[in-house]
């Protein structure tokens, strides 16, 4: 547990000092939402459907950036080797990196939700609160997947390009479930009416958190 908290505190300290990831994530979320507001014709589609889709597009892009950056700090000066050589269990390292990516993504999501409400003329009401568990499940699943994949892509040339190519298709089931559930929540539906979508997201989270924990040591090393 001390290794987990040491790595997490170190990542948060680095982020507080530079603010690079959070600012980049917020800026990217805002850009995506602005582009989509102008690109989509809200008059022809229900506003909540467009808003939910835009929010998840922003979240996916921000999540990729966040996961990439979380491991990028470890590639500087070969620090990842220092971690792998230490007694720290690779699964614990994965858990700490996942926790850091989740925190950065949560901050970006709060910003993205506020922007979404403003850009799509929605109300700050109970429907926004109902989004919280849906976005939390999506953030856990996407961070788990992207943290695992960025450990692989970070070792390759052009890894930044490779991450979205690998991550987005795998995330599609959770993405569809997340967009549908979010649209329903924004339309005022109660959470238990979107049971099926939430179950898909929980299953995705369990699968990729477990896979990441077990496989991280095999993908982060240098063979």
């Amino acid at each position: 547990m001390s290794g987990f908290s040491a790595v997490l505190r170190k990542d948060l300290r680095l982020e507080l000092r530079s603010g690079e990831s959070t600012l980049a994530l917020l800026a990217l979320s805002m850009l995506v939402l602005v582009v989509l507001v102008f690109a989509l014709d809200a008059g022809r589609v229900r506003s909540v459907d467009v808003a939910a889709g835009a929010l998840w597009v922003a979240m996916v892009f921000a999540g990729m950036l966040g996961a990439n950056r979380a491991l990028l700090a470890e590639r500087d000066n070969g620090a990842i080797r220092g971690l792998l050589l230490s007694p720290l269990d690779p699964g614990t390292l994965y858990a700490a990196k996942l926790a850091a990516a989740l925190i950065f993504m949560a901050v970006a999501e709060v910003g993205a939700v506020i922007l979404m409400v403003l850009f799509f003329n929605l109300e700050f009401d109970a429907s926004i609160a109902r989004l919280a568990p849906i976005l939390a499940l999506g953030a856990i699943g996407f961070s788990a997947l992207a943290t695992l994949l960025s450990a692989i892509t970070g070792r390759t040339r052009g890894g930044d390009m490779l991450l979205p190519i690998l991550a987005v298709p795998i995330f599609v089931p959770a993405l569809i479930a997340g967009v549908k559930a979010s649209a329903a929540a924004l339309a005022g539906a109660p959470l238990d009416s979107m049971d099926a979508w939430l179950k898909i997201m929980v299953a995705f989270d369990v699968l990729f958190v477990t896979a990441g924990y077990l496989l991280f040591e095999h993908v982060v090393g240098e063979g």
Partner: protein
Amino acid sequence: MAAPVVEIHNLAKTYGLAPVLREVQFRLMPGAGAFVVGGNGAGKSTLLRILAGLEAPSSGNAIVFGQDTRKLAARYRRRIGMMAHQSFLYPNLTACENLEFYAELYSIAEPRVSAELWLERVGLADVANARVRTFSRGMEQRLSAARAMLAEPLLLLLDEPFASLDHDGSEIVASLIRVAIERGAAVIATAHAVPEIEGVEFAVYEISHGRFASQVHKEEVRRGGRIRSLLGR
């Protein structure tokens, strides 16, 4: 009789089709030191990375503390300290924060106190709160030495430990190596030229085109002009 700290049997490493290490045989006892000398690309750094468990050999075995380095458990990794070309340090953390972080990873009691003690030992106490990104290469190398020795490892793997160091820095690192050997640690260091460390006798091995030659007599190396004194320059 004590068991060897390092045993290497018929070790080979290839990257793609290019062989980097071939038929390496080697053993090292506790409290012994070995210098591996060779030119650029000879395979010295690869050998150290394999011993640290950071890379797997293509064939043969590298055994450290009786364990195959392909599967080094945490309690064995804890006994290894490594200085590499890269410092393993975080540029945006201060010198003290870096050492404190590693002290926590190694479950050292009172990480802050330990970090300050090691900063003192490597002569960086006055820049303890400066970020590593502001350090010169030599200062970073000293801090890297402190990081590697923080947990008092029983096997020290040092990849060109004196590179970029000035005279004072070289003396500090040499004295830390001497102390480590005196407390029973085994030390493997690589270099282009063998440094002489007062009070410590190192076996010298030459590595060329991935082949690990048998032990080289120090006089032979000296005649080749490849011994340099760290002290009294």
